[in-house]
């Protein structure tokens, strides 16, 4: 994917030698090879996506999507927002372990996970703007002239906004180190704990809030996926969704950006993955148990003998129970291959689960089913690829994976 042979460690600014502006301009230049396979694939898709986005704002949402009057929310909400935010859950779980439980062994994961979470919110929640028919009114629920406080979406929108700020504060010491701003780093580091506590609180509410969005669609969602406990299920599953993403992204970063990662962190990485796999297995067990309780409580067995029923069984057994056992086995035998396989299967399971609630099981009785158009898919890919470009840009410049500059380490 992204190859990085040409550069070594990130270099922070030395305030004594360089002015901030000169430094910023020098940092804008691309680092690394331009014609990598990832770039060759992603660049044309991003360009095409930008054209499609222009068409979308010019001719209306219907000109690029397959949305209907019956299915007003499709891939952009179901995948970009609902699934993307679940995967961004790693940030609150890791900060919980490091700053609340004071489990310092995960410390090397904090910066990259928070950065990932922050970018996920900016891009995937930002993708929401593409889906708004009248995006210029998006300020209405924020500036306070129209507070629809009875709306779950009001809560989710505010939480997205506040959580982005909390994550930016959590990440800001890294930016300060990059810019060589010692005083700012000190102040910003002091705000970390407050931002973490605020961020975790927000996360519990909006991870579940994304599920609560669908509570009023009681008669529209297939009974195997609708329950009054959707918010709880979304919250619990965001724990292992986020951690699987941390494992998956970590194993890619450790290959692609390997020259940025210190020997010590390279060595400890496998140990961290093994500990994470145990947490994943635990959270997935709780989730699976909840699902069984709900299954019995709502007397769902009458729905099992149908194509949707088999699909449900596949999700629960093949994409929850099986990867849970893989995680557990990977933890017991210290097998990184098992853990990575489990993480990928779990992520597929999360995608399938979120799409089952939001798209596949939504209006499942309608004769004409919604299927996203190639243009919707292209725009979704554009959002994902752009996020990866920005992520890579930051990784190559700021001390995210690489160690902090010496002056910053002294303070810790």
């Amino acid at each position, binding site marked *: 994917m992204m190859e990085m042979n040409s550069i070594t460690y990130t270099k922070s600014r030395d305030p004594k030698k360089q002015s901030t502006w000169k430094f910023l301009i020098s940092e804008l230049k691309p680092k690394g090879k331009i014609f990598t396979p990832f770039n060759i694939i992603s660049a044309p898709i991003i360009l095409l996506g930008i054209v499609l986005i222009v068409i979308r704002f010019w001719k209306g949402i219907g000109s690029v999507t397959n949305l209907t009057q019956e299915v007003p929310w499709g891939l952009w909400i179901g995948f970009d927002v609902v699934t993307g935010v679940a995967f961004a859950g790693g940030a609150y779980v890791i900060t919980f372990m490091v700053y609340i439980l004071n489990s310092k062994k995960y410390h090397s994961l904090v910066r990259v996970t928070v950065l990932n979470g922050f970018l996920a919110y900016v891009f995937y929640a930002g993708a929401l703007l593409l889906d708004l028919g009248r995006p210029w009114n998006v300020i209405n629920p924020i500036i306070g002239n129209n507070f629809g406080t*009875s*709306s779950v979406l009001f809560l989710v929108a505010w939480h997205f906004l506040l959580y982005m700020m909390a994550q930016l504060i959590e990440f800001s010491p890294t930016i300060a180190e990059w810019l060589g701003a010692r005083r700012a780093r000190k102040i910003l580091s002091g705000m970390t704990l407050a931002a973490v506590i605020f961020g975790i609180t927000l996360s519990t*509410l909006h991870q579940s809030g994304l599920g609560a969005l669908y509570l*009023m669609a009681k008669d529209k969602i297939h009974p195997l996926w609708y329950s009054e406990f959707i918010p709880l299920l979304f919250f619990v599953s965001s724990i292992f969704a986020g951690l699987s993403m941390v494992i998956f992204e970590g194993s890619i970063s450790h290959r692609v950006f390997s020259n940025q990662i210190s020997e010590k962190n390279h060595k400890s990485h496998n140990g961290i993955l093994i500990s994470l796999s145990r947490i994943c297995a635990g959270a997935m067990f709780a989730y699976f148990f909840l699902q069984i309780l709900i299954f019995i409580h709502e007397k769902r067995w009458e729905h099992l003998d149908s194509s949707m029923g088999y699909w449900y069984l596949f999700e629960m057994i093949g994409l929850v129970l099986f990867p849970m056992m893989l995680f557990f086995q990977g933890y017991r035998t210290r097998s990184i291959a098992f853990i990575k396989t489990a993480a990928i299967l779990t992520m597929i399971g999360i995608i399938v689960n979120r799409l089952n609630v939001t798209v596949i099981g939504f209006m499942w009785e309608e004769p004409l089913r919604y299927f996203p158009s190639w243009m919707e898919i292209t725009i979704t890919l554009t959002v994902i690829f752009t996020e990866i470009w920005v992520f890579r840009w930051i990784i190559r410049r700021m001390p995210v994976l690489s160690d902090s500059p010496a002056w910053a380490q002294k303070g810790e």
Partner: protein
Amino acid sequence: MGLDRRVFMKTLGLAGATLALGKSTGTALNKDNPTEFYGLLYDSTRCIGCQSCEFACAESHNLPEPEDYPDPEVVRKMDETRRTVVNAYTTDLGETYVKEQCMHCNEPACVAACLTEAMYKTKEGPVIWRGDKCMGCRFCMVSCPFDIPKFEYHSSNPKILKCDMCYDRLQKGEIPACVEACEEGAIVFGTRRELIKEARRRIHENPDLYKDHIYGEHEAGGTGLLYLAPVEMDKLGFKTTLQNESYPSLTKGFLYSVPSVFVLVPALLLGIHEATKNNHQTEDDGNE
């Protein structure tokens, strides 16, 4: 048979109920009584499927006139160009008509869903849409159990369309356009309480004609649109499996938990942080 019944009902209806109820007396909004919602009572036994209501609705909202007809073979749907449709269904009693439009729920899901208060339940009863507030998120469409709000997918400045019970006309002291246009007296306008009383009276006086069910009295927590029909409403394409509690009640528990989460979780997190503060000094040797 069907026609005879209609002629009979027409005479009876025009002479009796509608007079008392104000279609012909032209009940305007009762400003002295702001606590009662207004609504519509639609009587399927009186409807002859003439589409007068559709034409009147189109005219008063500057929408294109309907070009198709109620047909038992086709289910006509509301869309961004029509706020109401009349459908024909073949039932045991022959062809039966039913008018569809916004139900103007007492506790509307679309209003609870709206984060900008663009969807708004007026104190008079109509649920209206206010374009200057709406951000086009379509959460109202996701939430509405009757699938009423429609969206202009092919506009760069899209609107949400739905029946607003002619709120503008109501404020001028007029009655909704469809009520005024209906020559059969199939739709009457009045306060919800009066309409339920009238519906009960009709069922009581003609128990053989009507199913003993006022659709909308309890469905979805009660609606401003009330239906009387000679057959069960599911034979006329309506959902009869809707819950009787209001739809916003489904999210109430979640929303009520928000303040307590905001108080308890940070306190809990801070407590755990303090309690585990010194752990890493002992366990850390190998990792850091």
